[in-house]
């Protein structure tokens, strides 16, 4: 009794530490991968940690147009995504909190983060930030159904509505749900790239505000709020990444092996994103919807396959 409780406590502690401390590593890994593919040295892997430390010492500047809504964007994003991190299983170890239907709550927390970020962008009264906000909400309209159709397919094959059992039911990739699972993961990979504003949907490194989505919405943030924005973006990479990694665990690893495997796959995911960014170009803005519709189609077909 006491022993299982202690094991559980260690797992929860590891979960929280991973969710809180690991995220800034991922953008560093992506940048390093891109630099190495391009034959450059690139910034250190821990660059984002240094940036966060520096920004938290800096003074913030608030425009006279803004209200308290301006701060709600960065704060709300981190709070919502951190709450969502409590619901998603890391590897095959169940999430600290799980209940029937937490998948919907999880998705709506990301909606909340998007709503507040967009309002925060509109609060500045800047044309560029309005543009980015409009693109963000428009593309989300196509990403959201793909996410939910994926949930529907997994819910049908596992008979559960909780992320902890939907994603981490060990060994089900060998059953007849194999093909639908691949389709769901393919659809979600598209959602992953879109939600995290990566190439080919969005380019976080471009110098041209007219072509950006996420970065252009946060142009006016500075100091600690900017640190929250950067940290929130990396947290999103990790939490949504756990969604993709979970079903890859073909069997339940016990104890620390689970964590080692999870961290390893997370690193692989970041390297994978870096490779995608190295070898593809950003899509033209009017092509992005087609790319996202591919995600909807993949997840919808996954569900149809489960029906037959």
């Amino acid at each position: 009794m006491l022993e299982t409780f202690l094991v559980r406590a260690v797992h929860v502690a590891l979960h929280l530490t991973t969710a809180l401390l690991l995220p800034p590593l991922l953008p560093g890994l992506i940048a390093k991968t891109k630099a190495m593919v391009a034959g450059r040295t690139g910034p250190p892997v821990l660059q984002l940690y240094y940036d966060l430390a520096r920004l938290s010492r800096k003074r913030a500047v608030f425009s006279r147009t803004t209200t308290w809504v301006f701060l709600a964007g960065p704060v709300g994003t981190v709070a919502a995504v951190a709450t969502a991190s409590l619901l998603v299983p890391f590897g095959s170890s169940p999430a600290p909190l799980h209940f029937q239907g937490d998948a919907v709550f999880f998705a709506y927390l990301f909606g909340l983060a998007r709503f507040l970020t967009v309002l925060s962008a509109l609060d500045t009264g800047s044309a560029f930030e309005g543009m980015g906000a409009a693109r963000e909400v428009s593309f989300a309209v196509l990403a959201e159904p793909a996410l939910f159709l994926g949930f529907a397919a997994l819910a049908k094959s596992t008979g559960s509505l909780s992320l902890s059992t939907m994603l981490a039911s060990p060994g089900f990739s060998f059953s007849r749900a194999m093909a639908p699972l691949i389709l769901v993961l393919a659809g979600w990979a598209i959602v992953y790239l879109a939600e995290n504003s990566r190439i080919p949907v969005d380019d976080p490194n471009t110098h041209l505000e007219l072509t950006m989505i996420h970065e252009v919405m946060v142009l006016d943030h500075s100091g600690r709020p900017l640190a929250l924005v950067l940290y929130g973006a990396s947290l999103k990479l990790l939490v949504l990444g756990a969604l993709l990694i979970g079903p890859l665990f073909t069997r339940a690893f016990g104890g620390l092996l689970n964590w080692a495997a999870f961290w390893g796959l997370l690193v692989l995911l970041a390297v994978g994103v870096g490779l995608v960014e190295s070898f593809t170009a950003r899509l033209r803005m009017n092509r992005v919807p087609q790319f996202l519709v591919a995600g909807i189609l993949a997840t919808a077909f996954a569900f149809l396959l489960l029906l037959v």
Partner: protein
Amino acid sequence: MILFGATLLLAFLSGLPGLFMKRGGGRSAALLMGSSAASGLLAALQVLLGRATGAVALPNQRVLDWGFLHLDPLGAIFLIPVCILFGSASVYGLAYWDDHRENSRTVRAAFGVLAGFLILLTGAQHAFTFLLGWEGMALAAFVLVMAEDRDPATRRAGYVYLAATHTGTLFLFSAFALLPKAAGGLAFGPWTPGFASSPLGSALFLLFLAGFAFKAGALPLHFWLPPAHSAAPSHVSAVMSGVLIKMGILGLARLVAWVPDPPIWWGGSVTALGLASGVLGVAFALGQHDLKRLLAYHSIENIGIILLGLGLGLIGKHAGSLPIQLLGFGGALLHVVNHALFKGLLFLAAGSAAKAAGTRDLEALGGLARRMPRTSLAFLAGAWAICGLPPLNGFVSEWMIYLAAFQGLGRPHALWSVAALGALALIGALALACFAKAFGAAFLGEARSPAAVEARESPPSMVGPMGVLAGACAFIGFFPVLLGRPLDRAATQLAGAQGPPLAAMASLTMLSLMALPLLAGAWMLVRWSRGRSFREGVPTWDCGYTAPAARMQYTASSFAEGLMRGMRWVLWPVTAGGRVAGFVPRPRPFSSHLPDLVLDRAAEPGLGGAARGLGALRFLQAGHLPIYLLYVLLTLLGLFVWMVA
């Protein structure tokens, strides 16, 4: 019994003293309406929390035990938003529609009468009382919509509304005329098993569906709703959108409760109506420039969500699955209450902003958050809730409907469930886009017109009611578990059998628990990010522009433009101008407009054509007495021949 009767009487009479008073009529009306609301809430709670005696024996409040009028759990669920909304709207009306208006007395009297008929409808248990309430409600609402009848747009909206509501009533009259065949009388009661599948049962369902969908504003019978809601005074729009259109849902819910064995196509058609209303309602909302018209289209969207819940529940009733029924019906009923609260809040806030800035045009508003902080906070709370974002109330009801759809995945007819899931996700994302646009354009950024610069915060009597509604939204969002039992009662009445409790099925306590890390995290982060010193009062950086101006802001139309272009094959927006030519282009005007698909493109041209075509028959009505006598004679002769033959 006494409570419900008092509620009814107080509401009916609330505007009456004001008719004979020189001043202070508004206060007396608000006082009477407030006490009516208080006693109505008590009556509803008594019914919903009372002790149930048997498996499906439900508590109720009888008035004059003739079977015409008693409040059961289903009616009580609808009585709650009626009371809250009318109570707060009548206080709001004190300053919003003050005594300087020449028709303030009429408006107050009609407002009270409307409240009375709505309360009557929640307790109606007989075709007679139901139709009485239905017709009274329609006429009282017509008077209120016409409050500003100097404006030709208002007159048009009023007449469209009157024609639409009476067409709907016509369907209901024929449906109720057929009701004795199904239920053995005009009193409301269960139908004989098997009747629903008979041809007459199908006809009866279609008649009821048409009549109720007209009132609820489900697509494609929604066309009266946007003009009427935007023409009416804001506190009237709040109650119309919040509770009046819900009476269509009440009617449908009664129908669901009567039928023990609905065929599958009933659930399918209600779900399909929900899909169409939900997705197209929010899509049309995105293209609106008028703040109140935008909110009106969102009512259509939310009616769609409610219909999705009812439809999924009906499919569950057909398949005999209690969890689907309870989650679907419970979610739909909770969304009725929730939508009344946040849509009422949004209309009141929109009215406050429009009154202060003198316009409802999104392209002329802007920057109100600095000038009207309380109103903008209220609007933000309403927008937050209507987008279904946690931890406010909109999420709770949408969540139950999601769960109902997920429950249906592993059963036959799973395609309806997955269609509902996809639609709910799409609606959620579109609603978020639409309210980001509405709140962003009206309240954030810089003011776009001189009038918006001059806007000042509304008086406490207008802000207070908004606070009450926002508080109710937060209360339901944070403590949904308290609603588990009342919803169980009402959903049980619709399902006809007792099932597992909703609070357990929908893990309602977990929702309260999840709000905790969210709020605590947000609080800590706000503390942390304000911890350093900061500099304020500088212009927006905007990539180095030295003098950002209000005209450089992204407009509401531009914000929605991408989505509108993606959906132009269904919405058919109309744009004019905007094409620039040459190396140094001259200023060009540009305008875009989104006409209503049914009213402007089908109903009005169609009915106009019909009127012209039927004009050919006008010679029959020549207006001469001898001709009419001739008609009488001919009819008599015809009858005579028919009887002999």
